[in-house]
């Protein structure tokens, strides 16, 4: 079953650098977990059968102890490394996952699942509701970060993996890593939340609301029923992406990349076309995004992030989320990240220190903003490498 007919190839499929050989890219589109593995959501709705699409890289060792679960961010997906089948571009962490890279597929079994409510094959709004034969659209139940993690735990049960060597992710992926460590401390040997937070702040929610309003005010959204009406709220979704993309960078990064440069002409045209380079860039970001992402999924996943507040599960005391935790943590933040600022990571570290947990924490100095975890930041790789090697030694994998 194809994940969705929304997934048209991008305008310009291109590979601008060497990517990994197909052998590292085990094509296992998805599994359908049977009725016994139904998932009771926080909202009270039960999802069954549950479909989870995932990718794996590397080999699981004899005692199933070398698995690393990568949790993807809001607009990421399970295609971490290798060539993405939809965009034709390298996976979003192709510089981190692969032979000899920090998440070394010669040593570890790396897996990544499309999140619940996503649009790359896991159960979500664009998938067909077996009861009606039509896409779920807004009849899909609201999900939470906790639900996403519970779904991943079911996948691990299915794969026979009792304990992850590591759960790792940036941004929303980092939220999942924290939730994993808190909910299943015995199933996680180490956790690496990157550019993440234990809660969504009011400002985070505010930006998401702008994105959702952009989608829902697009007439082609059709109250969420666009798939049945052969329409797509491309304009709204593109604006949502453009807004969000600004929050992923920084003033310095924008300035370095674009300054006040004009796109084509030397002279001002006194019009409203994409005259500045930065406008053209944002429009491009918006237009390529709509080719690979479903608008309703965007609504659902942003909402799941808004709901996330790890401390709230423990009477507002974050340190209670990690009581006597045996998990080894490495919390990583980027100094110029204003969307998930260093202070949010520090709050997590303080909560872990309050439990005398085994935690490492590093602020990576960079001016590239929130998206630094997707970029080639040698210091970030250094820290990640060192931590994983140390943890692997303790786990007996080295």
């Amino acid at each position, binding site marked *: 079953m194809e994940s969705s007919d929304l997934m048209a190839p991008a305008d310009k499929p291109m590979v601008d650098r060497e990517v990994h050989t197909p052998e590292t890219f085990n094509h296992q589109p998805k599994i359908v977990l049977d009725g016994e593995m139904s998932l009771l959501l926080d909202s009270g709705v039960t999802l069954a059968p549950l479909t989870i699409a995932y990718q794996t890289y590397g080999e699981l060792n004899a005692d199933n102890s070398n698995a690393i679960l990568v949790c993807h961010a809001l607009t990421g997906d399970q295609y971490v490394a290798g060539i993405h089948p939809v965009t034709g571009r390298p996976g979003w962490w192709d510089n981190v996952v692969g032979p000899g890279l920090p998440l070394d597929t010669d040593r570890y079994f790396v897996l990544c699942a499309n999140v619940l409510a996503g649009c790359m094959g896991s159960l979500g709004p664009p998938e067909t509701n077996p009861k009606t034969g039509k896409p779920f659209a807004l009849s899909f139940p609201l999900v939470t970060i906790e639900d996403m993690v519970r779904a991943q735990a079911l996948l691990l049960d299915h794969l026979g993996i009792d304990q992850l060597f590591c759960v790792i992710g940036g941004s929303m992926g980092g939220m999942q890593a924290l939730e994993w460590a808190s909910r299943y401390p015995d199933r996680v040997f180490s956790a690496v939340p990157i550019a993440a937070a234990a809660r969504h702040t009011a400002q985070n929610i505010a930006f998401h609301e702008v994105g959702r309003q952009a989608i829902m005010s697009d007439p082609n959204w059709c109250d969420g029923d666009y798939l049945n009406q052969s329409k797509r709220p491309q304009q709204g979704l593109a604006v949502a992406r453009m807004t969000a993309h600004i929050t992923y960078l920084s003033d310095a990064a924008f300035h370095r990349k674009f300054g006040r440069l004009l796109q084509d002409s030397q002279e001002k045209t006194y019009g409203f076309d994409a005259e500045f380079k930065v406008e053209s860039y944002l429009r491009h970001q918006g237009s390529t995004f709509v080719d690979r992402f479903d608008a309703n999924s965007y609504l659902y996943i942003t909402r799941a992030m808004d709901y996330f507040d790890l401390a709230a599960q423990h009477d507002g005391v974050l340190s209670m989320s990690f009581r006597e935790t045996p998990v080894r943590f490495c919390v990583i933040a980027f100094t110029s990240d204003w969307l998930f600022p260093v202070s949010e990571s520090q709050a997590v570290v303080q909560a872990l220190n309050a439990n005398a947990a085994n*935690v490492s924490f590093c602020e990576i100095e960079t001016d590239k903003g929130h998206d630094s975890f997707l970029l080639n930041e040698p210091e970030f790789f250094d820290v990640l*490498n060192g931590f994983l090697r140390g943890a692997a030694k303790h786990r007996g994998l080295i």
Partner: protein
Amino acid sequence: MTNLDKRQIPIGSTYNDGIRIDLRLIASLIEPGARVLDVGCGDGSLLRYLVEKKDVDGRGLEISQSGVRACLRQGLSVVQGDADTDLKNYPSGAFDYVVLSETLQTTHNPLIVLRELVRIGRFAIVSFPNFGYWRCRWQLLVRGRMPVTKSLPLPWHATPNIHFSTIADFLTTCRQEGIVVARSYAVDQRGALGAFFGARVFANLFGAQGVFLLATELPIHGGESVAG
């Protein structure tokens, strides 16, 4: 009054094991397998030594990103943070030993830091450059200049040290704070114990650096010398 411990610690006079000899003195005070927090752990050389040679469960706190990276590269567990602000997050008695090596004099609130150390650890081990060292006194008295020595290598405008003290000052402060000084050592410029340190006044004059094992109450074992 405090008697500075004359016991000879089996430390070499060279920089073998890739660790400064004053750090080896600190390491010699730590029981194998203990839980240790190294506050201001720098590049992690002590922590690594303790993990490798003494099998401790070691953690670090370090303010500089370069130090933290150096530690993480070696697989050590280190948090980037500030001794002045972040120690309050740790629970009481969470560690067997909290080490503060050559860092007390750089903190904004040494007294608060000191209280936190003995709260978090069953023992605290503190070392700092002794401003009462004769070379310091000499430079100030005769030359009228701020001292620059091997343990205080930077000029006044570049030094991170903002709260200087002498061994005598430190011992007085511990007494006032009700902190038990279980062991105390004065070491020379090379970081080796001097055999002549029999009395506090000599330690304060000839010790380039003081190293102290502290506790909130008298330890049941050991503790040959205590604050008077």
